[in-house]
């Protein structure tokens, strides 16, 4: 039996307070990656784009284009490059436009060229 259920029975409340505040377990949800531009070389960006199973990552010149809508939060990019990719911790991702979900991550050395 899940712990939140027992805790809820004890307190008499089982329902989440979501819009007010998220549950504690929200921190453990699989979330899309966040990138560290200082560790992202263009070679690494190409490698990550190749790893991504859902076409969420593509490299365009000196930018890594990350489509958070296409991301399945599988964690493969995080495993491949833990120094450059970490979990973002964001799960409230609803967007009114698809373009709001497409993020441009600058790559290392992008400003020099």
């Amino acid at each position, binding site marked *: 039996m899940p712990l939140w259920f027992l805790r809820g029975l004890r307190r008499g409340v*089982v329902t*989440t307070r979501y*819009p007010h505040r998220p549950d504690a377990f929200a921190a453990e949800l699989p979330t899309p990656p966040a990138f*560290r531009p200082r560790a992202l070389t263009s070679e690494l960006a190409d490698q990550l784009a190749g790893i991504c*199973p859902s076409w969420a990552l593509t490299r365009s010149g000196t930018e890594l284009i990350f489509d958070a*809508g296409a991301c399945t939060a599988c964690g493969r990019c995080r495993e491949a490059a833990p120094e450059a990719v970490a979990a973002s911790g*964001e799960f409230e*991702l*609803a967007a*009114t436009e698809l373009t709001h979900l497409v993020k441009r991550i600058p790559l290392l050395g992008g400003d020099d060229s």
Partner: protein
Amino acid sequence: MTRPGTEETAEALRRSVASQFGRSLHVRTLDTGSCAACEQEIRLLAAPHYDLHRLGFFFTPAPRHADLLMVTGPMIRAFDVAARKTYEAMPGPKLVVATGACALGGVYQPDAFTHGSVGETLPVDVWIPGCPPSPLALLQGLLVAVDRLAEKVRDLAFIQDGDAG
């Protein structure tokens, strides 16, 4: 191309439509070829822990009673007619929410069998990413759709803190 102020007018109209739904909104789910993980999470919304009804949302089995169409899956081409009929059967004003990474253009590329994105067939108002989106993410998406929560993802950079420069 567009007159100045048109976008503001469209935004105001969207907000007035959303406010019409207020605190009573009926949701019809439509599976266009999903793996059913999204459906599992959507079903959880009706469970006591998430309790969709406290927010004024209800599931309905009939599109004619629905205000909001929650579409999952990559929109397989075989489903075109059914999806269009479902959408046309709904009374206006109506909202469409695309749910899950398949519906948003991830996972499946367009090919002979799927459109690869719900947006190819239906006019989508809100997109909820996730594979599957957690019930909390779905709740946020529904609340964004009726304008009771602000969209958050637009301002996220997905760059780690302290490393933006």
